């Protein structure tokens, strides 16, 4: 088991940042483990979600932001639904992902690449272009044959559009992306 030296590694600012950005109070967590018991992803996490909560309480920024758990969370809302202290745990996980992105500490590169490919499609066309998103993911991630076994199935059942559907207001959607980028520059 990994031992953490709390005197050396506690980041007090981090605790406050998580609190502020999520609007939640992680100190309310008394480690009952209900979230971990219900979480479908516990088997796949490096730190179960209740431990992530404990790591927040002790300000373990580096461990949390580089963890795989925050990226493998699917926001299925089981933890939030079952927390006896009514902490919106799934929202906290969301905030941690956002922080990890901001600090360039994403551990699960493939998941981030998939999300980025998805968002690029929306920026370009206004709606999701499924085929394009998959091709873009495969090229960027280097996993060239991801889901190639599904190709014949979707073709045989006529389930996909080969060409993107560009909406009339796609520039307006792209503007949301641009204005957001500008706001980042303005506010830091």
């Amino acid at each position, binding site marked *: 088991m990994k031992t953490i030296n709390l005197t050396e590694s506690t980041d007090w600012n981090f605790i406050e940042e998580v609190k502020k950005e999520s609007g939640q109070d992680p100190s309310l967590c008394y480690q009952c483990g209900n979230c971990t018991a219900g979480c479908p992803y516990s088997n796949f996490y490096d730190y179960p979600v209740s431990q992530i909560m404990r790591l927040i309480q002790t300000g373990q920024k580096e461990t949390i932001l580089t963890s795989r758990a925050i990226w493998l969370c699917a926001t*299925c809302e089981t933890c939030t*639904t079952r927390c006896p202290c009514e902490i919106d745990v799934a929202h906290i996980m*969301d905030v941690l992902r956002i922080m990890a992105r901001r600090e360039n500490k994403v551990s699960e590169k493939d998941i981030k690449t998939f999300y980025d490919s998805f968002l690029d499609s929306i920026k370009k066309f206004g709606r999701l272009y499924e085929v394009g998103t998959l091709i873009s993911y495969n090229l960027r991630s280097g996993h060239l044959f991801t889901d190639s076994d599904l190709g014949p199935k*979707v073709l045989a059942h006529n389930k996909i559009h080969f060409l993107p559907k560009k909406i009339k207001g796609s520039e307006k959607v792209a503007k949301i992306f641009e204005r957001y980028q500008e706001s980042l520059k303005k506010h830091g």
Partner: protein
Amino acid sequence: MANKRYAYYSGCSLEGTALEYDKSVRLIFDALGVDYIEPEDWSCCGSTPAHTIDHVFASALAARNLSIIEKMGLDTVAVPCPACLMAFKKAQYFMEKDETFKEKVNELLDEKYNCRVYAKSTLQVLYEDVGLDEITKRVTHVIPDMKVAPYYGCITNRPPKLAQFDDPENPISMDKILSAIGVEVCDFAFKVECCGAAFGVPKKDMVNRLSAKVISMAIDAGANCIAVACPLCQQNLDLRQEQINKTTGSNFNIPVLYFTQIVGLAYGYSPKELGLDKLIVSADNFVRSRITKEQYEQLKQEQEKGKEKDVKKQEIQEKENP
């Protein structure tokens, strides 16, 4: 139902891999007299990827659509996809709660959103606004062989604070709709367990393993098909079923239909109209076994007569050979 007009936001999946969900929702809405209109030039809700970037940004992608609907003078949007539904509900929640947040979202938009649109799942519209009585009235056909596991997925009814519909742990709306159209509904323990959601592409193995649990539990419950209300659940359980078999060594071959397709079957629509040809694991056996209500009644009477005859035969036999 009279006079209420809904905006109908189908979402991106329903234009692609979930086209049959869109087809069947529209047919059912038409059959039940739900008045709906598609918002013009709607865009993607932002889904899961957007809220890993920033919550203001994610809310803006969702709110662009809500703003279009607001301008149309409508106050309720019917949403078939739970990911879109949650994107709308979260945007609405944060914007109503926090004036600064609302301003920041509106700064990203061309047309301001004033928080006057309420998002409801298609399931909720059918269950609460149309009602079970109306849903039953329209039934023309019976599918005697069908035993269905109602699978709601993780975020159709959760978190309760946002969903404000049905029970978050043991929802019953879909159970009741399917019972109302005469289908046998199984007692299914994994109604809200997560199938693996949007990780199908980057984390196939993980999704396959989670989906396998859902299918296996449905089969254990005695189901011969699964009803879903989410395009991602359908994709993970149906399109990826062969992958699941390869990953987990299982041998599943169970049809996964949208609950609206099942309602459509009971309403007598053709498989083509309902997009049943788009399912990877075929549900044709249910189409073949489907009979009209009249045929079903006749069959039942004949069976009962048969039973009476059997009883009489038995009595005679008993008399002759005491």
